[in-house]
């Protein structure tokens, strides 16, 4: 519409403006209602995630504490012999870092890039004050490894405030001082395997919850209200029991002299010597996660099935379909949105599951989240933890995107 045709309100102001004024108050009120939640989410969710993402690529432990060597190494190509100027800068940095009491952190940082260098730094820093030029010779006298290009390469990588080193480490690669990436030796690779293992476990749990949950959801949707309410309580029971109670129950059930194994022995499925190990390993992780996540599969399935009129099945049978055909061709396609929602929910939750594997997973049943927690709490390598977490986030978003393309997020029904 051109300006000349502007529709005017009764008092002569343009109608659009008038409408915006009228809507402003109600919009402001609506915003006021959600503002506390918005702030809460911002402070407790968005900001932490963003700062985590930043941590994955940013680490200034070296550059802020060792400014002189950082500056001079920026021009170094990462392969040639370290020069006298570089040694001079290093010595002055070491002296200052010892005074500032930051040398320990710096040493730890470089040690992550090149293992076994920590003591070189602490030892040399202690003596750096007394060194005389030429510094290169003096340093080599302290420790001949100072001549090693690899050590300097590690320092150069550490000195980069923003570097892909942690993301590289998170996918079992080494970021070199010359800017190249190199895959680690097969025996040193851990994380890619763990990511794959986590995805496989998540898939297994998703399939297990689907297989167990589908018939239950069907029953829930077709039973009369009174019985289905009772069944629903049973389904939701895992939500209501405390984690410790549940864990204890699993241990009692699953351990090698637990209820299940005793029954197996009694039934002759196994012998006393060959009891199954069902807990403190991958099996335990999968069993426990399937149990906990089952409601997340059942509830969306139930809500979708509840909405499918039972006459569809009858119609299919009246048209000549056997029970199975009627189910597969008519009922099942209607439940796909529920399967999609449930599977997406369970899969994404399992990818990030931490506490259950930690409790019942033993050595073998640890997933990527447990390693992230380890780097957060034990090794204090937050940047690596952030990089691993960032990759996990990307995987989740990618799954979500694929789901949207294949099934369509609009088709999702949560209940």
């Amino acid at each position: 519409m051109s300006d000349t045709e502007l529709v005017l309100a009764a008092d002569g102001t343009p109608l659009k403006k008038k409408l915006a004024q009228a809507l402003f108050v109600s919009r402001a009120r609506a915003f006021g209602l959600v503002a506390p939640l918005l702030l809460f989410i911002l402070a407790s969710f968005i900001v932490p995630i963003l700062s985590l993402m930043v941590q994955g690529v940013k680490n200034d432990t070296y550059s802020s504490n060792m400014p002189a060597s950082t500056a001079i190494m920026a021009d170094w190509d990462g392969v040639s012999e370290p020069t006298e100027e570089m040694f001079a800068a290093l010595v002055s940095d070491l002296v200052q870092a010892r005074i500032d009491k930051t040398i320990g952190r710096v040493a730890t940082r470089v040690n992550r890039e090149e293992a076994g260098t920590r003591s070189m730094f602490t030892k040399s820093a202690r003596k750096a004050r007394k060194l005389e030029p030429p510094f290169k010779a003096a340093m080599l006298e302290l420790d001949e490894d100072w001549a090693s290009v690899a050590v300097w390469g590690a320092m150069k990588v550490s000195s980069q405030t923003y570097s892909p080193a942690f993301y590289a480490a998170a996918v079992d690669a080494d970021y070199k001082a010359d800017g190249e990436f190199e895959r680690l030796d097969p025996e040193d690779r851990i994380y890619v395997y763990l990511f794959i293992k986590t995805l496989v476990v998540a898939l297994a749990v998703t399939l297990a919850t689907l297989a167990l949950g589908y018939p239950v959801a069907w029953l829930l949707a077709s039973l009369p209200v009174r019985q289905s309410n009772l069944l629903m309580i049973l389904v939701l029971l895992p939500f209501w029991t405390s984690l410790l109670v549940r864990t204890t129950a699993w241990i009692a059930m699953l351990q090698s002299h637990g209820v299940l194994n005793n029954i197996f022995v009694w039934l002759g499925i196994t012998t006393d010597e060959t009891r199954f190990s069902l807990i403190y390993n991958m099996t335990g992780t999968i069993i426990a996660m399937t149990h906990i996540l089952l409601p997340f599969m059942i509830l969306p399935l139930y809500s979708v099935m509840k909405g499918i009129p039972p006459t569809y099945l009858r119609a299919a049978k009246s048209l000549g379909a056997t029970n199975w055909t009627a189910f597969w061709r008519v009922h099942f396609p209607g439940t796909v949105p529920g399967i999609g929602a449930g599977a997406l929910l369970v899969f994404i939750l399992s990818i990030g599951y931490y506490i259950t594997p930690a409790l019942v997973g033993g050595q073998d049943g640890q997933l990527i989240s447990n390693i992230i927690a380890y780097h957060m709490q034990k090794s204090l390598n937050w940047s690596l933890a952030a990089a691993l977490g960032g990759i996990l986030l990307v995987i989740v978003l990618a799954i979500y995107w694929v789901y949207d393309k294949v099934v369509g997020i609009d088709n999702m029904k949560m209940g």
Partner: protein
Amino acid sequence: MRQRPQHFVLHVNRVGLEKILSLGNPKDAFVAFDHVQKSYDGEILVVKDLNLQIAKGEFVTMLGPSGSGKTTCLMMLAGFEVATHGDILLGGQPINNIPPHKRGIGMVFQNYALFPHMTVGENLSFPLEVRKMGKSEREAKVKRALEMVQMGDFAGRRPAQLSGGQQQRIALARALVFDADLVLMDEPLGALDKQLRERMQYEIKHIHEQLGITVVYVTHDQSEALTMSDRVAVFDDGVIQQLAKPDDLYERPENAFVAQFIGENNKLEGVVRAVDGDNVVVDLEGGMTAHALAVNCGGVGDRTMLSIRPERVTLNAEGPNSTKALVKELIYLGDHIRCRMTVSGHDDFIVKVANSSGHKHLVVGEETDVSWQIEDCRALDA
């Protein structure tokens, strides 16, 4: 004559109907309910001793108020509910133990039950696919069925993209596409507006004639039942109150329920004073003495209800049933005038005065003569 049933002029296919009516052996009928009972909860009989025989090619309607057990009967025939007692026979064979998908009965559901994830064409092709029919044959049949319901261009659409009436047609086509001999319809037109309903009634009837199929139809709309059916089974309380051709049902109701349920009816209550062959003399509560046909009224001293159709009452003092009436209300309806009057103490007595030339002009508050023939006055159960 607004309430009179209007029959379609179409030639009604009544193969063997007369024979069936006179026979009684369930084995000779195409569909037969033989002493069927049904209870859902073990306490209440929803269907009580149902006996119904349907000839091949017949159009039988189950008519009755809500909750009278019509759907239950249809579901038992289709195989979705099990009869608690009695046999259901199809072509002389008991089908109690045959699962629904092997009965080969077409069914149209009240809310159509078209499969939402399939196109119209796929919906129609479904019964053919499960019968392992070849692709070209399937396509030909689907096309023919769609053309029969005048929906030839809609094969690619989804059910959600169709109007109610169009969905109705597709549901009908789907029930017919696999050449079922017997088609069940449970209030198929219930969700449509009046005009569309009437058109669909005509079309369903037409398809029935054309294909020679047997139709069992459920409705609680009496004009639908009367216009479409060869015979109507009036249900109430799990019992067939009367099973008859539409004109018989209207003109010769056999009990008070049918008389009241079908069409408009004047009821006058009284006690039988004397029985005289086919006729009875009844003392009405308002003091009048009436002569009526003894249809279903017991003996001397029993209570009875006289049923007289409003259009059979005349405004004169001829014959044995003649009395004074006070005009209470007049409604002008164009082709006739509906007149409510007090007759023998009943103030809801309706008379329809045809708007013919020279008819008597009534005035509210006026007293007039009314009379009716003995054969138009049926003494029924009270």
